[in-house]
Structures are given as C-alpha cells and as structure tokens.
C-alpha cells in the first residue's frame, strides 16, 4: 500500500496470480520420483462466497462451465469458516486436465471482479503402496503466487506431518515457487480434495 492509502485508511484487495498453477503437472512427476506420492485426481478451489445475487449467478455459471465437458460433476461445499469449496474430479493420470479446470474456475471468478475473494487451490496426493492412507496436498496461495505442502497425520485429529512437508519442499522446490514464510503454511483440515 502506498503512503496515501495508509494515511487515508484505504486498503486495496490483492489481485491473484493464476499462471503458476500450470507448473503443477511437472512438479507432480518430480514429487512421485522423490517421495512416491501420486496424484489422487482430486483438486479443489476455495473462495469466499460474496453475499448477494451477483455472486450467486456467477457461481451457477461456473458449475455449468465445468459440467459442460462430459465427466463427473463438480461438487460444491461450504466449510465451517464460511468458505466455499469447488471440488473437481479427474482421472489420476490426467493432472493437466485437472489443472486446466481449476484454472478455468479461477479465471472466471477473476474476470468478473471476484479475484480478491479467492483463497487457495489445492491438489491431492496419496502415499505410496502400503502407506496409501497418507495424504498430501499442494496448496496454491493466489495472493502470493506460491505453493506450500500440507500433510495431515493419518488417524489423528489435527496434527501435521511436518517432516513430510519439509521433505516435499525440498523435492519440488526447483519446480514450484514454495512459500518461504512458514507462518503462512496454514492448515486446511478436512478440505475437499485432500
């Protein structure tokens, strides 16, 4: 914010940066080679549903847009914090198709002026072989243009596998811009697509 904005108490909403999403398919290959984690084919977009009719109409348009190509429907849900999640399903092998869908949702919201209300997008991964109850998500922060890993410990409520998260940071650090500020790696417990 500029000096005048600070003085006058005017904060501008931050605009999102969408393009880095397309780096995900490459990173997924690297991730599998390094840790054995593979994509689940689930991905979701989290945004703040703005009150009023304009946003409700837009939300309907996005659903129709994603449901248009034959494939399972997107699922809409609301979490305890009042944020809306759009869950998209794809074949686990077709990660670039999933990323394209997520990008389409984001781009539609942004071009209609609701970009400041985007929170994050995430793509789910599952553990290798006999550890397939382990989950991992790569979360994209629009306002920063950075990614961070989120890995809940299986079977326990609200505990994170920090060792795995740091391992993932090392593995995909070359492919994705990783959020350097660890305090911004916020947990998304129970997020759809995890």
């Amino acid at each position, binding site marked *: 914010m500029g000096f005048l904005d600070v003085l006058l108490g005017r904060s501008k909403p931050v605009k999102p940066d969408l393009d880095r999403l397309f780096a995900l398919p490459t990173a997924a290959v690297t991730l599998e080679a390094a840790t054995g984690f593979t994509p689940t084919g689930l991905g979701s977009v989290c945004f703040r549903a703005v009150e009023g009719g304009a946003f409700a109409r837009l939300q309907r348009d996005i659903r129709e847009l994603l449901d248009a190509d034959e494939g399972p429907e997107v699922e809409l849900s609301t979490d305890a914090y009042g944020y809306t999640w759009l869950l998209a399903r794809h074949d686990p092998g077709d990660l670039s198709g999933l990323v394209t869908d997520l990008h389409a949702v984001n781009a539609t919201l942004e071009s209609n002026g609701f970009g400041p209300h985007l*929170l994050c997008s995430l793509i789910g991964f599952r553990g290798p072989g006999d550890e397939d109850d382990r989950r991992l998500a790569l979360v994209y922060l629009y306002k920063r243009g950075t990614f961070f890993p989120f890995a809940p410990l299986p079977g326990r409520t609200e505990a994170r596998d920090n060792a795995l998260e740091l391992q993932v940071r090392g593995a995909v650090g070359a492919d994705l811009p990783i959020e350097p500020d660890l305090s911004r790696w*916020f947990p998304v417990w129970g997020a759809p697509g995890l």
Partner: protein
Amino acid sequence: MARTRYAPDRGLTSRMLVTMFLLGLVYVAFVTAFFVIAPKLGPAVLVIAAGLLLAQYFFSDRLALFAMHGREVSPEEAPELHGVVDRISAMANVPKPRVAIADTDVPNAFATGRNQRRAVVCVTTGLLRRLDPVELEGVLAHEMSHVAHRDVAVMTVASFLGVVAGLLTRFGLQFGLFGGFSRNRDQNTGLVLLAVIAVSALAYAISFLLTRALSRYRELSADRAAALLTGRPSALAGALVKISGDMARIPTRDLRAAEPFNAFFFAPALSGGLSFSALFATHPSLERRLAQLQEISARLSREGA
C-alpha cells in the same frame, strides 16, 4: 471487470483529510504561540513528550496486551481462531499476526502493533462465545485492517499534540503554584505561565475533539475494508449489533436505579445529549456504521456478472 466496486469512498476520504489538516493547523499554531510566549521551556518539554510517544509507539502491542490481560495462544490451543486469522491473512496477503485471548466476558476485540510483523490481534472469550465463525471473521478482518492502515502510527502522531499540551499544562501549573506566583519573582513570569496554561488547555481541548473525529473516520475505513475483503458486510453488521447490544446491556444494570430520577432533570440521562456525546466518542454511532455496511452490501449484490 467490476473493479469499480473497490473505488475509494470520496466522502470519507475528504472528511478524514480535513480533520488531519485541522489537527496539523492547531499543532502549528500551538507550537508557534508557545515559543513566542515561553521560549525557554519549549525544547525540554518537547523532548519529554517525544520520548513518551516513542515509548508508546514501540511498546503499543505489549502495553495493550498487558492492559487487557491478553494471553498469546498457540494454534493447538485455539485452532478455530487461528484458522480464521490464517484465512484472512491469506486473503489479504499480510503476514499472520500473533493471536491472543483475553479472559473476560465483555465482547470485544482489538489489534495493535506498529507494523504488520509485530501485530497482535486479541479477542475476548465473551466475543468468541457470542459470535459464529463468519461474524468473528468480519470482526477480525476489521481489526486487522487497523494494522494494515497503520492506525497505531497515525493515531500516535495525531495524539502528539494532545500529550504535549497536557504536559505543558501540568508543568505550567507546577511552576505557577510553587514558584511563579510568589512575590519575590517579577510579575511577568506569573502572567506568562498563566498564558501557557491557557493556551495549552485550549490546544488540548481542540486536538482532543479532532483526534476523536479522526478515530471515528478510521473505524469507518476499517469497517469498509473488512466488508470488502470478506465479501460479507452483513455478517460484520450482525456482529456489530450483537456486540453493541450486549455492551449496552451491561451498563444499564447500574443505571436502572437512576432512571426514575430522570423526570427531575432537564435532559434525560440516557436518551438526551446524543449529538454532544457523539463529539467525544472514539467510534462512530452504530447507525452510521450499519448504514455504510448496508450500502456496500447493496453494491456487492448489484454489480458483477
């Protein structure tokens, strides 16, 4: 693009500018008058005042937490609260502030800290008990807007004059009582000191009113920023009504006994003198805040696709 939704509120901006201008004007006039009347006392008092203000500026977060008996909490202790703060920080792209809880049933929240790195937001247990997560988010976004707008810095500078004037009044009184009025000094000293006291008191009174006005405008700015960030002006409005409703109920208990006597007063103790008390309030009236939020809500649902 519906970018116009975030166009600045010109009325609010201009009123805030006028207030800041007047505040500066009073300050300049005051300092000039002071140096003309008592050139010797000036520098020392200014240094003391500046020192106090620097301390207030640098320790604002710790002072406020201490005064409110706030206790910093970890994400494990208060996962929901941290979750809300995490999300607001990610939406607004600001560093996450420290989170604290004050153990009192009065519903309230505050945020302080001279910059975003050192910010701390504190909520009371009473607020957590009364608000649902969406309303809580509105309140926290409001408080975090204060940090983003650097209210600590702006209000510290704005209250500079008030503090200086207050100090001078005190010094003037001390000198006047213990030395200035004694017969063995020449008569001029006493007169000068009286003049200093008078000017200081006047400057303090004016700057007091102006800082209050500035504070009210900044509250409106923070409401606006929070409503646009969360996209839920109505949730914030609901939270305001809940909080103020509860707050209004607390003092009535004590005042109830006094109400029968109102018939003997010229102005009733509760309803009268509204415009006068509005001058001294640090927060705008609930109606004013609700009206602004309603306007934002109408705009949000009208514009877009």
